[in-house]
Structures are given as structure tokens and as C-alpha cells.
């Protein structure tokens, strides 16, 4: 059974009951079939009602749902001829950042993503999606590669943030992130960044300084985690829910603030309830975004990208 989030408890109970009835069901048991239909309908309504008004904190939990499709799921489904490239040519290969060459709708592209992993083993391999300097330096290398060969860059961002560790600091975590942002800003190619889960601060924007920034409906993008913000400003990590609300980190809030371009609707109950549909929706949105940049040359793209970021926050709509 899939892990349920705390606020999904009533739905989980209904789905549990439905499952029980299904197990009991004998061929021809009409009453049971009716009951199942009734409960399914009820569960569906409950799910619709719950997900129609998720709080910011609930969205944070959905964004971090262990069954939510992660970057590699998108790369595997949306990109053909995927050819991973590795290493920063200086120190190491960092599996927290995945990427390489591939074809998107037949067109050669460079792809990059922060990968959290789907089970214990892969989470350890990908360091839970928290990259080290070598990861951001690899990203920079691939961004520059894309620029040199005039290939669009597609990124899929899902990270709690850059890895906070002794070695990461010793190797220049801050500089590595700064250079990755810089590489995005200097790239003479279209960049489409999609926040598919968690957009955690500097570790996220390192791969999200794009011409178009898309966000899945229940993903979050924030300067600090709700927990981190709560422990600093409220001196109590338990206030994370209040902090999440205050930070305005949901896709819809960020669109209203004009910090992102597009919100991609998710299947009912979140991307994890219908992974193929979620991935298809992202694919379609990326295709549309990419098409909107067709025919623009490198200098135009760079100039527009700069203008777009320079305009951010200057005028805040109410």
C-alpha cells in the first residue's frame, strides 16, 4: 500500500474499506458491488475536496511524497536515446545531479535533474538529491556543453537543497552554486526548468535560472525549508506549517508573484497517484514552453532571460 500523508487519513480509511470489500467480494455479490461503488465515489469526492484546498504545508508534504515521480522518471519517460554524462573533470561524479544528452520529441537536448532516489539504496547513491560542489560543477559543464552545440537545456529540479557538509564547504559549495547560476545566465540556448517536487533554495536555483520556469501544481520552491524558517524565526521547528504559509512557496503563489511562468496541473490526489499522467503533463508543458522560444537566437535569449530576472520583484502584484 502506498504511504499516506497525515491529512489523507480519511481518504486512506475509505480506500482501506474499499480494498477490504473487494477482497470479500464473491461473484454476483451485488450488494457489495454497490457498496464499493458508493464508497469509491465518496473517497473520490473526499480526495477532490482535500486536494482542491491543500495548505502550503500539505503541499510541502505532497512535494516530498516518497512515491512522487523523481527526475529520472521524467528523463526515462520523456527523453529517448538518453545518454548520461558524468563528472566535473576535477574531483568526482555526483549522482545527486543526473544528466546528459537525449532527444526530446526527437530533438537533441541536454537534460539535467536533481535526483532523490526511490528506495533506500538509490537514495544513498543519489545522496537524497542533495548535490555537492562536484554536482554543480558537472551541471555547469553540461550547461556549457549545451551552449556550445546549440542544444536546448531541460532541467528537472527536486531537491531539499545543496548538501550541507564539511567536504562540500571545503571544496567551495557556494562558488559551485554561483557558477552554475552564472552558466545558466550566459547560455545562448533555450532553458526550460521544471520544479517537479521540492525547489530547495540555492541548490534548486542553480539549475532553475531558465527562460521558462514551470512548476508542478503541488511542488514548492522556497528560499528556505519551512522547518528551517520556523526554527529561526519562531525558534520552534514545529511551527513549520505556519512558516510554510508565510513563505508563499506554492506554485500558485509564485506564479502570482511572477517569479515562475507556468503551473502544471497534477492528476487528482497528486503526481504519485497517476505517475504516467503527471509525466505526460510535464512533457506537454515543456514542449509548449520550448516552442515559445523557437527561432530566438542566442543573444536574444540571453538578453531576455536577464530582463526577466531583473524585472522580478520590482513590481509585486497584490
Amino acid at each position: 500500500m502506498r504511504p499516506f500523508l497525515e491529512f489523507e487519513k480519511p481518504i486512506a480509511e475509505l480506500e482501506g474499506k474499499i480494498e477490504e470489500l473487494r477482497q470479500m467480494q464473491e461473484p454476483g455479490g451485488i450488494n457489495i458491488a454497490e457498496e464499493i461503488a458508493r464508497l469509491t465515489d465518496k473517497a473520490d469526492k473526499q480526495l477532490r475536496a482535500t486536494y482542491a484546498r491543500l495548505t502550503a504545508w500539505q503541499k510541502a508534504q505532497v512535494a516530498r511524497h516518497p512515491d512522487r515521480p523523481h527526475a529520472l522518471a521524467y528523463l526515462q519517460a520523456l527523453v529517448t536515446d538518453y545518454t548520461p554524462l558524468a563528472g566535473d573533470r576535477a574531483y568526482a561524479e555526483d549522482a545527486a545531479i543526473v544528466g546528459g544528452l537525449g532527444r526530446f520529441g526527437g530533438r537533441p537536448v541536454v537534460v539535467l535533474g536533481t535526483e532523490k532516489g526511490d528506495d533506500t539504496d538509490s537514495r544513498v547513491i543519489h545522496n537524497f538529491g542533495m548535490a555537492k560542489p562536484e554536482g554543480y560543477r558537472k551541471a555547469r559543464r553540461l550547461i556549457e556543453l549545451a551552449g556550445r552545440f546549440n542544444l536546448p537545456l531541460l532541467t528537472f529540479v527536486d531537491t531539499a537543497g545543496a548538501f550541507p557538509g564539511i567536504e562540500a564547504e571545503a571544496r567551495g559549495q557556494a562558488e559551485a552554486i554561483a557558477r552554475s547560476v552564472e552558466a545558466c545566465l550566459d547560455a545562448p540556448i533555450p532553458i526550460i526548468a521544471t520544479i517537479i517536487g521540492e525547489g530547495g533554495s540555492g541548490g534548486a536555483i542553480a539549475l532553475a535560472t531558465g527562460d521558462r520556469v514551470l512548476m508542478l501544481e503541488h511542488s514548492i520552491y522556497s528560499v528556505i525549508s519551512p522547518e528551517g524558517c520556523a526554527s529561526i524565526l519562531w525558534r520552534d521547528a514545529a511551527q513549520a506549517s505556519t512558516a510554510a504559509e508565510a513563505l508563499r512557496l506554492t506554485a500558485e503563489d509564485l506564479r502570482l508573484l511572477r517569479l515562475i511562468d507556468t503551473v502544471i496541473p497534477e492528476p487528482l490526489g497528486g503526481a504519485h497517484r497517476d505517475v504516467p499522467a503527471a509525466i505526460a503533463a510535464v512533457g506537454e508543458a515543456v514542449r509548449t514552453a520550448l516552442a515559445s522560444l523557437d527561432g530566438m537566437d542566442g543573444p536574444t535569449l540571453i538578453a531576455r532571460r536577464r530582463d526577466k530576472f531583473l524585472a522580478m520583484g520590482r513590481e509585486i502584484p497584490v
Partner: protein
Amino acid sequence: MSWLTEIVRPKIRSWLGQETRDVPENLWRQCPACQQMIFHKDLDANLKVCPNCGHHMRPTAMERLAWTFDGGVFTRIELPKAPADPIKFRDQKRYADRLREAREKTGLEDAIVVAHGLVGGQPMVVAAMAFEFMAGSMGAAVGEGIVAAARLAVLQDAALVIFTASGGARMQEGAVSLMQMPRTTIATRMVKEAKLPYLTVLTDPTTGGVSASFAMLGDVQIAEPGALIGFAGARVIEQTVRETLPEGFQRAEYLHQHGIIDMVVKRGDMRETLGRVVGMLRGVRVEPAEQAA
């Protein structure tokens, strides 16, 4: 002064009790590193560097400008207004109130001041971050300040020097503060594209989103002795890796050893260093005889 501070001061302190430090209008300040009491005039004359242990105390942004420009002469520019409180943030206090208090306390609009003038004989635009203003945190106003400083440098054909002092992004501005990372990076690109030198002086502390953007993109990167510089906070790292942090971790000297900054320069040598480096980067020739003299 040593006999006075080392011998006489402790006695006076014991007569007057613990509060002495603050009572006679802050005539004496205690060095946070060696605990030495220092007479305020001596401290100011020494650019707020402890005469006893060499600890570099945190100055205000205005002090920084006065120390940096030749003869303390500079022209401050007015910075473009940024939207205050873009996400109507409130924690236990409203961000709008915090801002007002910080403005009253510091007399500054936000956590950055920008000025132009001569430094070591070279025309420069200097941006100094104000740690005294909400821990130097970077929101839209700081971003605007950096962009304005870069534009001014290009306009005046001057080098850009930024003194960083910041706890990181200003979380009360949510993702608007995060977007200052690309925005300030664009500013550094403008200066570099104009083939003008861009120097950063990392001062205590420089962390988070500020370190991970314009602070680390200098053509030449300088730090003050002992300055705390890094991306992640020490406490977060300790909690993540469950290890004790090494001696001197994230300090200027540690970054120098790890190849992240070019040099550690004492405050008293800063103006001369900036002028020399910028002069050479801009191709200023000095006759050998002139140099020998």
C-alpha cells in the same frame, strides 16, 4: 596603553560591577575574541581591529566606506526603491515592523550602501553590505543595490568592489530573496562584459545566498582575517554529518588554504591592496624608478 587596559581596567570594572562596559557612553569596548577592554578612540583609530589580538570586529557599512576611499572622501548614491515587504510576511512580528525598526536603528534604507570615489588612486564603485541592518540579509533592496552599483561602475568606467557581510537571503521576502541570486549574478556579468575589474572582499560573516552568488564571482577574491565564509551554517552541517567541525572551519584562512579565495588581507592594508590590484588589472604602468622610490 597596555598597562592601563590590562591592569587598571579590571580594577575599575570590579568597582563598578558588570555593567561598566556599557555605562560611560561606551567609552570602552571589549574584544569578543580576547576579552581585552579597548578605549573606543584607540579602537576607531585602529579600524576596529583589536590592538591586542588582531581580531577584526564588524564595522558599520558607513565606516567601511570611510576607511576604503582615499582620504575618506566618497559620494554616496541613492539606491532605487525596492518593493518593501513583497509577500506581506509576518512571523512573531511583522516584517514591515522589523524593517522600520532596522531603519530607525541604523539610519539606512536597507542592508547596503553604494558610493564612488578613488581607492588607492583608482576610480572605484564600492558597495558595502550593512550587517547591522537585519544581519545584512539580501532581499530585493540589496539586489537592487548590487545592480545599481554594477551599472554605475560601467557608466563611470570604474572597478566594482563589493564588501560582503551577510547571513544570507532575507527569508522574510520568500522566493523574491532567492531570485536575488541570479539578479546579482547578472550585475557581475555587466561589469565583466565591460572589461572592468570586479573584486569581492568577504568580511565576517558571508554565508548562504550571498556567498552562493555575487560574493564568489569576483575576478579577485579577498577576505578579512578570521571572517566566517561559507554556504551552509555550522549548526546545520553538524546536525547533518554528526561530526565535530574542524578547527578554523569556514574561516578566511581555511578558504585560502582550500583555494577558494586569493588572499587574506588585514583591514589596514585593504585600500592599498585594492588600489594595487585594480591598477594592474587596468594596465596602469608604473615607472620602475617610481616604484623603487
